[in-house]
């Protein structure tokens, strides 16, 4: 099957594989340690684990965009900030 029209690159493939592995990981986590019921965190509304992953990913995308727009193209620090943000979301939201 010719997928050249999709213009795959190694970084974008790695990006999507990471997202896919996160989703699989969430499934495995829920299977071995059920706890995905909604809870109320610092944002004062109910979130499940899936919601928190969504908020983490969406927030991370905006952290990267903000870094790119305000600071510059070196995104490693933005990635580090996004990881800290995601941990915070899973811990407190």
């Amino acid at each position, binding site marked *: 099957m010719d997928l*050249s029209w999709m213009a795959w*690159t190694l*970084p*974008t493939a790695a990006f*999507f594989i990471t997202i896919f592995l996160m989703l699989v990981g969430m499934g495995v986590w829920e299977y071995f340690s059920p706890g995905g019921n909604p809870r109320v965190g610092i944002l004062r*509304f109910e979130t499940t684990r899936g919601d928190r992953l969504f908020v983490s990913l*969406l927030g991370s995308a905006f952290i990267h*965009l903000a870094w790119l727009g305000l600071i510059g*193209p070196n995104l490693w620090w933005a990635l580090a900030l996004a990881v800290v943000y995601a941990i915070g979301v899973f811990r407190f939201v």
Partner: protein
Amino acid sequence: MEKTWNNKAWFMVLPVLVLVAFSAVIPLMTVVNYSVQDTFGGNQFFWAGAEWFEEMLHSDRFWAAMGRNLIFSAIILAIQIPLGIFIALNMPRKGWGVPVCLVLMALPLLIPWNVVGTIWQVFGRIDIGLLGYTLHALGFDYNYVNDPFDAWVTVIVMDVWHWTSLVVLLCYAGLVSIPDAFYQAAKIDGASRWAVFRYIQLPKMQRVLLIAVLLRFMDSFMIYTEPFVVTGGGPGNSTTFLSIDLVKMAVGQFDLGPAAAMSIIYFLIVLLLSWVFYTVMTNYDVEK
């Protein structure tokens, strides 16, 4: 009580997953791939990294289109939601008027977008259009081709004409589902018309209003065909919304990389705003 686990239901979701994969995920992946590369055609791509995103985030043209789109969506929601509720409240609940009103309300929704654009393009013309000619004859200096304000008014009125009925039908569905007992209790309590609306009808319409706000926001934020047919994004760039700008960039200029980066930023903003709307409205419901 012990919960019964049955994962067979996941197989029922499989067809939808396959459909979504082909209609949304694979195109989205392709757009992400394009957004980090440059191409001059011929299926040849050159790595560009985050360059297009940086270019977009510093582009006045992008932010201007974004501003216009946000203003447009805000105006559309501010008009269509209250107007839709008002019309639904005044529609008959029984008798021959019900089917007549429902058919009249459904009519604009059945017309294809490009046809709606063409109707309003002709309707607003000052030489042959009923609206444009009449306004001109009455002494109004109306010309949507030259005047940005007139172009905005035309596009907004067109969208209100096309889509308010969706809000009406959703609200009407919410209203007819309210049992008569609620109204009888309100009557016994001597509730005013406003109190009936505020404490019975509005809460009962909340779920359908959530859907109406979400649909109308997303549709108006992604509007393309109607303004493109009526104004072509003009005069100047005054009605160039994000999607019109995107198509100009991707198809007109064949700048696939910047257009892909713009699409992703656009997609993320739609996703964020929709999530905020959804979360705020569903949690308001839970709190109540």
